[in-house]
């Protein structure tokens, strides 16, 4: 501080005419546009809140209805199972696609082409009708009589299983492309360095390539997880009792369609919001080494905010003026 003052004094005699204030441009349109948008938003909120056709008490009541809660759990369960299984499948498909074996890479390409090229809704209904295609399902060696295990299709493939199957197989096609992009993003020199240290191909994949690919894979997989959670609502066409189906079942009885859609929407928003938390921490974990300094976690940010608000004199900011004098 003293150094700055000393410098000001030293320069003062010849600098009087140059001692002017710089005034930033005034931007009135910022205020006007903000006011217009706020007014429109307030108008919309008012029209909804005062709408006599919406039964707010019913929304509050059905938000915690046991059937809705059951639907929420089922939605989460389906999302979890479909995401985990599809990710494992996706790694296999991506590995096949990257393989130098032309048969494996063609089959992987065909899989992605077929499952990405047809609507999810169609796939769900198709899996629901599996019993029409095959009366019995068995595991054995094709074109021989060797069968290890067999079951009746309609007993095995319930609506729930068909739904999970459809979501999983469809998701695997998308996820495999994400995994493949992640693997391609890792520099070839990494593999060479790992090999030169005596690492086996599998060890190299697990400890060197995959952790680096994860940095590219995690953000889009977060998106996919949120899409998956919402896409579970499509299972209503084969009567899986997830939250949207539950909501429509209830509203078909009490005719409060809008209220129950709002209830379902609130739950969807809540679940997708919670899902973005683990994504943030996963990104942070796999971002190690990619940037020079990791961004603070929300908790660290909170702590910093409180620390800076603590009473007492703030330390004077560093100034380079000292060395300039």
């Amino acid at each position, binding site marked *: 501080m003293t150094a700055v003052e000393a410098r000001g004094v030293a320069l003062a005699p010849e600098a009087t005419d140059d001692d002017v204030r710089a005034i930033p441009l005034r931007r009135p349109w910022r205020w006007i546009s903000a006011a217009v948008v706020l007014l429109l938003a307030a108008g919309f909120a008012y029209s909804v809140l005062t709408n006599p056709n919406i039964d707010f008490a019913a929304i509050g009541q059905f938000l915690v209805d046991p059937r809705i809660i059951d639907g929420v759990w089922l939605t989460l369960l389906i999302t979890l199972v479909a995401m985990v299984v599809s990710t494992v499948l996706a790694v296999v498909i991506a590995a096949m696609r990257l393989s130098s074996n032309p048969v494996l890479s063609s089959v992987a390409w065909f899989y992605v082409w077929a499952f990405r090229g047809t609507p999810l809704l169609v796939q769900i209904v198709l899996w629901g009708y599996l019993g029409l295609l095959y009366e019995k399902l068995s595991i054995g060696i094709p074109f021989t009589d060797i069968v290890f295990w067999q079951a009746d299709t309609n007993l095995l493939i319930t609506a729930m299983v068909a739904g999970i199957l459809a979501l999983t197989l469809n998701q695997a096609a998308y996820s495999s492309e994400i995994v493949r992009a992640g693997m391609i993003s890792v520099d070839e020199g990494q593999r*060479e*360095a790992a*090999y030169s240290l005596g690492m086996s191909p599998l060890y190299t994949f697990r400890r060197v390539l995959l952790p680096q690919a994860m940095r590219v894979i995690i953000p889009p997989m977060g998106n996919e997880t949120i899409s998956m959670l919402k896409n579970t609502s499509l299972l209503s066409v084969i009567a899986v009792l997830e939250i949207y189906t539950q909501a429509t079942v209830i509203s078909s009885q009490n005719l409060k369609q809008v209220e129950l859609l709002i209830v379902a929407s609130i739950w969807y928003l809540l679940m997708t919001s919670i899902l973005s938390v683990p994504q943030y921490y996963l990104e942070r974990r796999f971002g190690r080494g990619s940037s020079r300094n990791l961004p603070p976690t929300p908790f660290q940010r909170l702590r910093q905010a409180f620390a800076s608000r603590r009473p007492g004199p703030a330390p004077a900011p560093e100034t380079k003026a000292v060395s300039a004098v």
Partner: protein
Amino acid sequence: MSTITTTRTAQDAAVDARPLVEIRRVRKSFGAHQVLRDVSLAVPEGTVTVLLGPSGSGKSTLLRCINHLESIDGGRIIVDGELIGYRQAGHDIHEMTPKQIARQRREIGMVFQRFNLFPHMTALENIVEAPVGIAGMPRAKARAKATELLDRVGLADFAGHYPAQLSGGQQQRVAIARALAMGPKLMLFDEPTSALDPELVGDVLDVMRELANDGMTMIVVTHEIGFARGVADQVVFMDGGVVVEAGRPEDVIDRPQRQRTRDFLESVR
């Protein structure tokens, strides 16, 4: 022709040391392009061999064949009495499985032009990874050894830094420490200073010089003529996939016999 020249120099240098690396009539093509044509070379234990030559001369490829990062089309590479990447069966040699090759590579350290440190691991973790994960060394022991190696390359204070937080010269010295952590009997350097800012080259060369003084067997691809003159026991000049000239540095660098060698040395100077 080239074979005769090398055999003579190898024997010259190997008066009291057996060859640790023997390269015999190695051939290698990428598609129709023949990169190595009958290359033969002997590197005695405890000596430094510098490979010189214009880009595309096959010197980097030869280096990468020695730890089987590249397969060969014919000939033999023998390190410490062991055929690298292949096993002999009758007249032919058959490529090994990746697992067997990985075991052989533990004995051969390699340093790359672009460092190739693992960016998601700190300097210390980079060094510790292979000894712990591959060689089964206890973690505490591996960490102690890694700290010692970091100290040796002058980076004792940087154990917790990620590669992105280090300069090129520092990264390359960590890479050298990482390769040394497996206790190799041979070190390969593939243009270790080519990607560095000029003022950072010296630190890396110093570390390599010390390593040579400690008796490490080294094969170095480089354009640093000063390093070759000061440190190498043997200088090998390659061009067009053959060894043009090989011998003591004072002979090859100061009194080159071949016109191609003279032209090349003229161009780097």
